[in-house]
């Protein structure tokens, strides 16, 4: 997990609004970086930045919604707070569907703006944590052998050693051996912990229940 402090990235083609918003956020204690266009944002941003993105919806070139779609495809999808000169319903719906944290008009009161920014930053921290956990879990599960992953799939479905042995057509003792190896590699002793890890890694679906033929 990154320990860097959050930065508010503001993208707006309106230079004066960009400056003014940056001043307010700095005066309110945030670290701020400004970009005059979506293209500038992609070329100049710190790829590992933490924080959030505050973007104008209507911009020449790549507009806010396109920026949102492009950012979602990167490995560091900062959450977005949209600002617009004039809130029209279709684009706000699209923005929210695309996962935006909020959609405000540019004349929104300061408290509303700062509140939304704090929520967006908090969401980044939350999502970042989830992503890190998933990545870590994935890495650890990646060290398992094919057979061990298979056994793990059965274990987290609550099957007993004997049942697993039957299902896979191996000896119960071999199952025990695999379980021990899994516990060592993943460093988690209990079935509950194993299940949590597998959920975090998002790999539960990889283990369809298997049954011996003829049953």
């Amino acid at each position, binding site marked *: 997990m990154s320990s860097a402090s959050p930065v508010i990235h503001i993208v707006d083609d309106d230079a*004066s609004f960009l400056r003014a918003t940056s001043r307010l956020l700095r005066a309110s204690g945030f670290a701020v970086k400004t970009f005059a266009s979506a293209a500038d944002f992609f070329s100049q941003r710190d790829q590992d930045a933490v924080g959030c993105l505050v973007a104008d919806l209507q911009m020449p070139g790549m507009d806010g919604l396109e920026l949102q779609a492009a950012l979602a495809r990167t490995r560091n999808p900062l959450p977005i707070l949209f600002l617009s000169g004039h809130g029209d319903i279709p684009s706000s719906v699209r923005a929210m569907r695309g996962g935006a944290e909020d959609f405000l008009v540019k*004349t929104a009161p300061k408290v509303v703006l700062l509140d939304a920014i704090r929520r967006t930053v908090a969401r980044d921290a939350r999502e970042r944590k989830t992503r890190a956990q998933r990545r870590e879990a994935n890495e650890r599960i990646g060290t398992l052998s094919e057979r061990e992953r298979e056994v793990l799939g059965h274990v987290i479905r609550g099957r007993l050693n004997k049942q697993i042995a039957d299902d896979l057509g191996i000896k119960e003792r071999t199952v025990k051996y695999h379980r021990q190896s899994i516990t060592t590699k993943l460093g988690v002793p209990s079935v509950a912990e194993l299940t949590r890890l597998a959920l975090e890694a998002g790999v539960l679906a990889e283990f369809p229940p298997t049954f011996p033929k003829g049953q």
Partner: protein
Amino acid sequence: MASSLVAVFVVLTAVCAAGSEPKRVLVVHSFGSVAPPFTTHSIAFETELVEKMGKRVDLDEVSLDMARYADSTLQEALVEYLQKRQSHWQPDLVVPIGSPAGVFVAQYRDRLFPKTPILYTGMDRRRLPPDALEKNAAFIGENFDLPGFVEDILQIAPATKNIAVVIGASQVEQYWAAAFRKEFEPYANRINFIWLNDLSLDQMLEKTRALPPDSFIFLILLLRDATGVTHNADEALQRIHAVANAPINSIFQHQLGLGIVGGRLYQAELEGIESARIAVRILNGEPASSFQPRIVGPLSPRYDWRELKRWKIKEERLPPGSVVSFREPTVWDNYGGWIIAGVSFCFVQAVLIFGLLANLAKRRLAERSLIASEDRVTLAADEMRRLQDEIAHVGRVSMMGQLASALAHEINQPIGAILRNAEAAELFMQSKTPDLEEIRAILADIRADDQRAGDVIDRMRALLKRHVLDTQLLDLAELVGDVAKLAQPDAATRHVKLTVNLPADLPPVRGDRVHLQQVLLNLILNGIDALNRAGPGNRRVTVSARVDAARTVEIAVSDTGHGIAAEKLAHVFDPFFTTKPDGMGMGLPISRTIVESHGGRLWAENNNDTGATFRFTLPQAEEASAS
């Protein structure tokens, strides 16, 4: 604003006309999506076609602009692309609009559309390839009278010694530059032609800013300038108009009002509509070759009154039978004060913030007052929002609606920046040692944004002024029917029975279709609103009409509500007078202005039994003038 109404009607007609297998029409554009006069033509064509055919037409388009930097390989690639696409989608009719598209289609006809009928349009007769019409094809286009354009200029400005010719450098423009040069030769001893075709638009603007005395500017086309930059000719015209020191003429009717003086103008829009009508007949089975090639000529001379005034051209100089437009007072002229008042209100808030800040800067250590002032800034912002909401409410009358929405959008940029700057300044000043440099920069920014907001208002103003009457012959039954269809869903959801009751033989009137639709829609919706508190039994709004002895047509919209209180009856047409909790009081005054600018009257009266009736008159059209 017209387009959105049109779009609604298009949808309505489309729904009504659903039925058999749709006919496929491929429109081949010469240039991109905003390239007047080609797009003036194509928009009229597509709108008319869809209006006439509804869902029975499947409209598809390609643009030759895909091969913009036309070398032969790109064009070949486009042909291959079209061939591939035809294996999925075979058109029943191909419509190239403009000569680049026409020449392209004719050249590749045998490979691309050997059997499909072709309708060549939006081009001059002499640009049509010689054998193009031999194979199941029709033509509707122009036959420009090139010396006529010079004659038109000399008619109104006989002392003209120089004509600056504005034209771009794309292929089609090169063709026309050469053609015009040749046809202008006979005038060489009298007139010095200044050709601007090898310049960028910026350079053209420089030139037209400082032309010698007795000059005239003639804009032929501006699609792509010599530096390869693409332009919208109508916008370029407006930019030239803004800086030029000489009067301007151009070729097409839709440009009247954008800054040209006028003359015999060609009708790209009418040509679009006429070609759509021929397209419908071809799609309904008539062979394309059965249509005689058709030339759409110029209109009788027409002029922009404001330009005549500006360049001191006497109306006696105009040829007999000339039409002078834009003489009418616009909505802006009548209610400009009120609109400014509304908008200024926004401004007062901005100024208030500014004043507040200036004040703060003076006594920057008086931290106590800051909390109170922050409340005031928030209040001011709330006030602005409330005002914007109110302006947005007028959206029902679409002209005001467009104004409001554009205004809200444009003006929120500088106002938002002012607000953010004010808030930031407050925070900076709470510090023990405020950064005065920063605060100075903030104040400078606020001042600049204030200026910017002012410019927005100026632009809005120009926009309102530009929207002047576009009069045409109107069938009242059709107009009323269209608007009733539009209001019907609103009436139904509010349990109001909307009835149209017109005599069969209403004479046509002359007027601006969109404006009159707005008036009628506004009256009908007001009628529906008037029934808000009426009981469930008798909730009716009726539109009726009758012909008056004085050759006027009177249209009445009556409701069965509670009527208008006697003391209010005299004020319903006052701006900002409203009886509705969420009303703005602009609908009726705007409606009255529109009716009066058509030479009619609009008034209100209470019915004998129950409810009120709004009536307006319009003069009958004289015999339809040939155009």
